């Protein structure tokens, strides 16, 4: 059923070679995924055939482009189990979605002395907006600690809930440890304590079936570019009552109902949060990405990634001097970060690159987590629907090459 070689054929990038003649081994999908032809075609078709600005023109092109744009919104809503597509706001990416909540909800509803709860495994995009708001408003922030094996410490979480946080904001899947957090459980407990819940879905929606209404969260953020879609487009899901109560975000066209010389009135959701001309082609490309993933099936994609990740975990575990971070193979998504002897990740990444293997090196936008783990920087490999066990074998060979160059050849 799940045929990786057919899937790879959909991604034109795999036709190219790296550094002259090396096969591309792309292990950096957690940073951004590659794009299938279907998505490129959808965007091309719009620009070559149906393009005009949306929501404004009274002409055939404008109407067709608007219909396609809104249809993309509906299909994305469907994809994540949301009935009411007015709860789906187009943003630029996960980062903007979280900032939108900080500005439009946080500034309105949070007050000096209020408490918010994040976790030790957050990406900078789910830290910095809250630090900025905390500085402005005088909020206090606590962090749910992680356990030795890279899971959220649920006992500590329960204790921290006694501080009655107004907001609990956390990632569904860690982009460093690969940890899959128990979203429904954390959400239910947070709601009991009276908190609003935001989930960073940047690493979950691309890789596993996500049913937002089932999870019960209040806000959920993700990006198209990590799930076969284009850059420059992302989603903020928000519960209707919350979105309706919030302040607008940016001011300008599309977000208003009426403007006079004295005043303005705000448009309905979701347009209230979509000021200015949207990334039209990108939204339509996003719709095509969702169709593409749907046709393969998110459960099948998740199962495939689990298999590749498990294989990689087993293979990497046999390399002397290689230390993996985070939970066991069966408790994680398709992400493995590791340290190798005392070799700096930049050197590792560079030598792997010379062999056609693309990995990520550094702190992966999670500096506090690395600080917590007392790791300067790490090397991260991440898998997606197009990765194979052959990719893993090449990675392992590549790592032995790194060891050889650095004279850590205890092999």
């Amino acid at each position, binding site marked *: 059923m799940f045929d990786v070689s057919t899937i790879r054929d959909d991604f034109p990038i795999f036709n190219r070679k790296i550094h002259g003649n090396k096969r591309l081994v792309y292990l950096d999908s957690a940073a951004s995924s590659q794009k299938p032809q279907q998505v490129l075609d959808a965007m091309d078709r719009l620009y070559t055939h149906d393009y005009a600005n949306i929501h404004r023109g009274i002409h055939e092109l404008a109407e067709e482009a608007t219909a396609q744009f809104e249809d993309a919104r509906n299909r994305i809503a469907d994809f994540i189990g949301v009935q009411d597509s007015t709860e789906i706001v187009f943003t630029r990416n996960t980062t903007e979605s979280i900032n939108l909540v900080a500005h439009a909800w946080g500034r309105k509803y949070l007050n000096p002395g209020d408490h918010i709860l994040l976790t030790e495994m957050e990406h900078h995009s789910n830290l910095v907006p809250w630090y900025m708001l905390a500085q402005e408003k005088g909020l206090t922030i606590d962090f749910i600690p992680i356990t030795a094996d890279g899971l959220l410490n649920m006992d500590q979480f329960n204790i921290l809930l006694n501080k009655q946080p107004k907001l609990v904001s956390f990632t569904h899947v860690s982009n460093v440890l690969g940890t899959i957090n128990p979203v429904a459980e954390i959400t239910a407990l947070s709601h009991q304590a009276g908190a609003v819940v935001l989930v960073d879905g940047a690493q979950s929606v691309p890789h596993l079936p996500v049913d937002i209404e089932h999870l019960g969260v209040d806000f959920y953020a993700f990006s198209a570019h990590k799930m076969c879609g284009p850059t420059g487009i992302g989603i903020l899901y928000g519960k209707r009552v919350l979105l309706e109560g919030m302040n607008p975000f940016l001011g300008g066209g599309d977000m208003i109902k009426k403007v006079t010389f004295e005043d303005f009135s705000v448009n309905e959701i979701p347009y209230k949060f979509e000021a200015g001309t949207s990334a039209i082609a990108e939204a339509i490309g996003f719709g095509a990405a969702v169709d593409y993933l749907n046709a393969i099936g998110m459960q099948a994609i998740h199962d495939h990634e689990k298999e590749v990740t498990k294989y990689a975990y087993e293979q990497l575990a046999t390399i002397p001097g290689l230390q993996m971070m985070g939970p066991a193979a069966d408790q994680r998504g398709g992400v493995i970060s590791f340290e190798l002897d005392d070799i700096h990740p930049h050197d590792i990444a560079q030598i792997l690159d*010379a062999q056609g293997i693309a990995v990520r090196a550094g702190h992966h936008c999670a500096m506090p987590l690395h600080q917590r783990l007392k790791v300067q920087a790490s090397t991260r490999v991440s898998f997606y629907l197009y990765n194979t066990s052959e990719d893993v074998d090449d990675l392992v060979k590549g790592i032995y090459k790194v060891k050889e160059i650095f*004279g850590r050849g205890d092999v």
Partner: protein
Amino acid sequence: MMDDLYREMILEHYKNPIHKGELEEINHSFEDENPLCGDFIHMDLEVDENGIITNAVFSGHGCAISQASADILLEDIIGKKVEEVQHFDSQYVIDLLGIELGPVRLKCALLPLKVMKAALYGIEKEEE
């Protein structure tokens, strides 16, 4: 490409640096880091009354390029006059290393130059 970047000369300076250490008698010292990659360099320099750099050592941690670049740079400046060293630019260091670097790795390679200049002329620590 890799064979260029991780040439024997670079790796040798990384694995067996000549000028790694700390000085007791110093009159110039500075340290800085690339927070993005975690490269860290501390330098101690000794300049005599004639303005000649008589001794220089570094300590730190980070990628092979940053650490080798520190060792190679110090090897080059010892015995030179402070005024001469003042004119060293990025290209000078790149030529010393003899490798081609992309923009990310260039930061690693140039950190030692930044630290050296700050140590000698008191250039402000740059905010990242």
